[in-house]
């Protein structure tokens, strides 16, 4: 499957970013790699979509950011989930399950 983030359904990117942050704080590249990893390389999130999404989600209060040192001692901006973000993850997860179940149903019907 071609890794094309723009074909992601509205909200899916948010869901993936939130999910990637459940285990702990990550910087932008870390999030990108983590999404790649947990989707078995299906989705490659490019910086051009990643950063606007991160900033939007920060504005919504789902994630918060701070400057820290990366594993090889570079200054990097880290993101982590807020309480609202965890709630949002539940909402998005529930919504996505519903959608995927519905799509699966639709595809199974003949």
């Amino acid at each position, binding site marked *: 499957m071609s890794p094309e983030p723009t074909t992601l359904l509205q909200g899916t990117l948010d869901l993936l970013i939130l999910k990637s942050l459940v285990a702990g704080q990550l*910087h*932008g590249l870390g999030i990108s790699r983590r999404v790649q990893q947990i989707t078995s390389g299906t989705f490659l999130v490019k*910086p051009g979509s990643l950063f606007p999404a991160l*900033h939007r989600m*920060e504005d919504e*209060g789902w994630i918060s950011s701070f400057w820290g040192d*990366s594993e*090889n001692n570079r200054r990097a901006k880290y993101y982590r989930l807020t309480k*609202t973000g965890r709630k949002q993850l539940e909402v998005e997860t529930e919504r996505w399950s519903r959608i995927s179940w519905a799509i699966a149903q639709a595809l199974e019907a003949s």
Partner: protein
Amino acid sequence: MPMLAPIRSFFRNLVASGHVDADLDQEAHAHLDMLTDENLRAGMSAEQAQRAAYIELGGIEQVKEQVREQRLGQWLHSIYSDARFALRQLRKSPGFTCVAILTLALGIGANAALFTVVESVLLRPLPYAHSERLVYVGLKTDKPQFSNTSWVNYRDVREQSHSFQAIGAYAEDVAVLQTKDVTNSVGVIRVTPNVFPMLGIQPLLGRTFTEAEGEPGGPQVVMLSEGVWRDVFKAAPDIVGRSVRIGGVAHSVVGVMPYRMSFPEEAGPDLTKGGVWFPLQPTPEMLKDRGYNFIAIIGQLRPDATVEQAQAELDIVAQRIIHDNPNNTSSNFGLRASPYLKLLTVQARPVLLALLGALALVLLIACANVANLLIARCLGRQQEFAVRAALGASRLRLIRQLLGEGAVLSVLGCGVGFLLAEFALMGIRKLPEGTIPRGNSIAIHWPLLLALGAIAAITTLLSSLLPALLVARSDPQAGLQAGTRSVGAHSVRGHMSGWLVAGEVALSTVLLIGAGLLFRTLWNLERSQLGFGVAQVTTFSAVSADSGGFATMAVSENATNAPASMATLIYAPVLERVRHTPGIESAALSSAPPLSNDDLHSSFEIVGRAKDPANTASSRVTAVSDEYARTMRTPVLRGRMIDADDSADAPAVAVINEVLAKKYFPNENPLQQQLDLGGKDTGMIRPFTIVGVLANQVDSAVGGTPDPMIYLPYQQVPTSSLFYQALVSTMVNFVVRTRADLPVASTMRSVFHEAAPNLALDSFRAMQEVVDDNIFNQRLGLYLTSAFAGLAIVMVMAGLYGVLAQLVSYRRHEIGIRMALGATRQNVAGMVLRQGAMLIGVGLASGIVLALAVGRVLSKFLYDVRPTDLLTYAAVAIGLLVIGSLASLLPAHRAASIEPMQALRED
């Protein structure tokens, strides 16, 4: 703090967008570096690693741009969606929306109109070059005012001060302009030639004055106003160079001034319509007499100089003048520098600012009312908010929704208010000329937009922040569980609404007390002693066509062979003709009838009394004809009034007013005392023997204290004296008392046309009109304040009614229980009435305290009534209690008619 995050980001976006960008830039670079590191670890060469990283990133600037776009888009989108949602909500309740918008529009419209006046009059610079540096220099009087000084003093100031880049002088005068067809009196301004360049005014046609034209005995030249050029000369293109007869002398026209040139502004709007400018050519009199106070000084400060510096210099100059001229300068002589615009508006400033203050109160009341309406709506929509909160709307989201509704209401209120302001300004433009200084410059300018923006922001915050915070504080769970009402929350809201209403009552109390005090003032003024009868009396001015104006004042050396007076030759015969005109009961001449603003002050000495150099006696001086007291119906208190026998050859006599008699003859009989009006210096050689005391006449302001006054027989003012031009030969006023309604102006014009064709008549006014105009400002102030107070009362009634009605409907259940337990309907009604009375009482008490505090501000507008006038306070208190009871009656009645069984079954 999740709730603070969006607020923080909002400020980050708006306030610190530079900082955000730097942060983003750093983040993108860090990302790029980490990608490069990753590629290096994967075994790429340094160059390849960087290249691959760039490809994956897609360009730092592009990434940044995408983030920025997203951010702006979201911001705009959220504003748009908030506004759209608010509009949809408001459309659902058109009644509420209309009331709220109208309430705000009234408050905003009135404020916008008055702001426009304040901006145009007080703040907008005059249309002259560096007008903020224009400074008027006049005599130091007890308060800043236009007060002329003399040419000699002007010369000293010009030569001894260094704060001014340019300094010039001017003098107001009158003259008659004669052409083949017209004989018009025109306003004349004599200016030193440097005044026009200083003001930076270019003539419409021709040129301004040259230095040579300002020399003593210089050429007779004139500049016309655009009004005179168009009206009298039909805009003749060849006007420059033509000869025009003004004041009996041919003047060569050198230029025409455009309409916008109306210097000096204090001369009023007539100047642009019918004024001319002469170069100020100092006469021998001006050059030698330091007491010849006809000169106004205008200076332009150097860019680095301040008014204070100029004042310090003037103080030194004044000290030097006193020191050098001990004999003819009073020791309390002083000069004052005042910013020109400030001096021009010195009267209007406190009035306008006080009105603006009153209007701010009205706007506050309007905001409180809208806040109450919104709170009431929130109570009704509690469930809606609870559901929205339960479905995940953040508190901020709810607050934004309410603020959005408030903002939409405010913006619409501003729009409607702007239209109302336009109407109000149309009314203001219809006010009589001269009511407001610079009245013709009042127009809407861009600062109003800023002001409206600020007003909209403030009204939004004031009216919707409180309800928004209440909604945000409330617990959605309680809201959902309690069905239609949550007991805990609504009592908080009930209190809040109550406080708002009490606040409204307090502010209205202040407005009502202000209106009450002004009403008492006007009442007192209209019944104050004028010292003359107004009914059936008309005044008009007459300017002699051949008079050279006040500026030609001079003492003639040859006093023995002085020519005969115009008073004897022209005025006396024409007065005789006037008196024999059918319908005229009596007629007289006066150089300055009451409230005419024509004024001549002079120092005098009482013959046989030692001279006190520190405290020279001074008085207004007026020339009057016989029958003056009879025509004005002013009683003669002692002795006799000037009569027809006081001719030029008869013994010189004078009549004084009561103020002068009390001030200078406190314990003696003034009759037969003699007054010396300057002797050789002024040409008043003969002393005047006091033969009577006339009751005081109001002089410059109704309700004011009149100045001392000396009345001289008009035929006895020597033609060789300085006083002749000032009192007799230039401009005089006639007062006529008619028997029935008579077209005075046309009758008089035809009489004068036959008997004295050389006199140009002007300014026909009924005495009643003169008096009304004089107290117009108080009247206008009363009307405006009453209108504001009326507005406030209506809002208070609506607010009180609303709060009580709300309270009753939310306490139905409780009231039902009370009645089931034995409370009577009277008890219940009494409970609601008490609640209303408490709100009114608290508001009234704090309002009275507030009014006592601000009353001092008002005291300078009051006449014969103290700012703490008990009657006014009592009337306002009783009035508000009555109004409050009226507003509480309906809710009380509704509460009393609740059926307990029905109310209990409802939930």
